[in-house]
């Protein structure tokens, strides 16, 4: 069974040959290539080469065309700060006043050189893997993007105290997000990962989410011409899982802090789970710990399909040793074969 069929089977709540492994490897490619993060992302060809290499090396079941979250800010004319040991960050906010929101114009996706690199990488990867491996593209949700556009504190004030400008910014961000997602789908992405950390109850309380981020997601996802995965980037999902399902998304990236038994029960046959290995702790995992975590995850959430094993943040940190990723891959192949054995999950 190839990766595409394996993932699609699990998405349809059926049991494929084994539990799919979707390690979300993005800047980790720089480590594999032994170049700086900045140099790695300067050429789309690097991403193509390393995604194909990492797919084979870790028996990964997906290609991940995510460069870095701040690329959308870069496309909007903002500054991006590269660091040697972490993901590129957005710099000074591009929106500082209400007037800036009024003046803000979304970039033209297909003419933008930064987004163009992602589209070229996607197209090339699609030509290489065809329908053998799913390609996951990425957008920031219109609701979470302003954390980078204007800074967290100012944005929270906008949400609570300035509904008119909040609505205006959402309208513009939604238009951009839909265009950006659909361009990636046209270039060959199989599905779009909709990163929406702000919608986690860790960040915003559910009643405010229902009035804001939930409505934004419903409008936006409805206009994306393909499958979507909502990812809360380490934030808990369980208290809002019903609301997230109502946005029309097919996959949920959940947290290592979510209760595995409960989230599987709630998700069963309704939404496919993507997660939830702790990428921060992974930095110092040894082999017995890797096996324990993989066995626990498969035992509690693997039955009946509907599980894609991944980290819980949407990006494997550079600091995670290659050995750990190889051991994760080995453990998934060892313990993830369907039909699952009852005693394989013993901790």
């Amino acid at each position: 069974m190839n990766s595409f069929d394996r993932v699609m089977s699990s998405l349809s709540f059926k049991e494929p040959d084994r539990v799919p492994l979707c390690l979300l490897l993005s800047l980790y490619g720089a480590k594999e290539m032994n170049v700086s993060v900045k140099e790695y992302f300067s050429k789309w060809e690097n991403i193509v080469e390393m995604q194909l290499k990492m797919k084979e090396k870790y028996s990964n079941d997906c290609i991940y065309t995510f460069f870095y979250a701040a690329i959308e800010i870069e496309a909007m004319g903002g500054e991006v700060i590269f660091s040697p040991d972490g993901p590129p960050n957005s710099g000074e906010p591009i929106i500082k006043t209400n007037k800036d929101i009024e003046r803000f114009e979304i970039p033209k996706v297909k003419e933008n050189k930064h987004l163009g690199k992602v589209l070229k990488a996607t197209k090339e990867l699609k030509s290489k893997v065809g329908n053998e491996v799913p390609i996951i593209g990425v957008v920031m949700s219109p609701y979470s993007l302003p954390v980078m556009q204007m800074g967290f504190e100012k944005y929270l004030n906008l949400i609570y105290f300035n509904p008119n400008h909040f609505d205006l910014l959402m309208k513009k961000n939604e238009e951009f997000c839909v265009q950006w997602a659909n361009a990636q789908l046209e270039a060959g992405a199989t599905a779009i990962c909709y990163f929406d950390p702000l919608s986690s109850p860790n960040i915003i309380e559910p009643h405010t989410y229902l009035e804001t981020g939930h409505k934004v997601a419903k409008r936006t996802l409805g206009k994306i011409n393909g499958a979507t995965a909502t990812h809360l980037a380490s934030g808990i999902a369980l208290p809002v899982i019903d609301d997230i399902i109502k946005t029309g998304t097919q996959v949920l990236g959940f947290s290592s802090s979510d209760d595995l038994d409960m989230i599987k029960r709630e998700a069963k046959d309704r939404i496919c789970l993507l997660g939830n290995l702790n990428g921060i702790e992974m930095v110092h995992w040894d082999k017995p710990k890797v096996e324990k975590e993989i066995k626990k995850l498969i035992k509690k959430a693997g039955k009946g399909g509907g599980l894609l094993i991944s980290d819980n943040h949407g990006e494997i940190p550079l600091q995670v040793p290659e050995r750990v990723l190889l051991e994760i891959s080995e453990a998934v192949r060892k313990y993830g074969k369907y039909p699952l054995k009852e005693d394989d999950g013993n901790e």
Partner: protein
Amino acid sequence: MKEKNAYVDDLKNALLGVDRIKTSEIFSEVFSQYNSFEFIEEIVMDVLKQIGDGWEKGEVSLAQVYMSGVLCEKFINEYIPKFKFSKKNSPKIGIAVLLDKHSLGKSIVSSIVSAAGYELKDLGSGLTPKSLVDLAKRNKLDIILISSLMLPSAMKVREVYRMIKDENLDIKIIVGGAPFRLDDQLWKMVGADGRGKSAYDVIELIERLV
């Protein structure tokens, strides 16, 4: 006259609802009824502790914690002059973010620690370990609070720790933020003296360390 617990409940509800008007009314009522800064401070600390506990249990959002801190700091600062109140005999505390510009955690801790009566020096964001230690020396700090959102900046605390040890400085390090919440061992691995799971925790750690 309403009891303290009633005010605690009212204020907590107003803050969690991010209701500026209601919060202002409660402060005004407490002031007119009791005319005691200590009483206002007690209520605020009780509420912020409950909100901090709620955050640790996952019942309260980061946005609510932040907005509660901002509102409490605003009103505390409004009422301090009415009592000719001088802040506690505070240790010299600085707060900073290493490497990146994510300053929400720093703002939350600043608001809540300030609302508790401590004076805090904002050392800025995007600092290197060396620039942070230089600032700590220049300001003769007793404690530095370091807020992190990303793993690389959390790992840099180790360099701050080494520099402090190499120079034989008597400065305590308290860390907080997502990487330290997601990995319970990380704060010890980087050499910190304490880890705050919530901003209110930081107040308790300051009191314990000085």
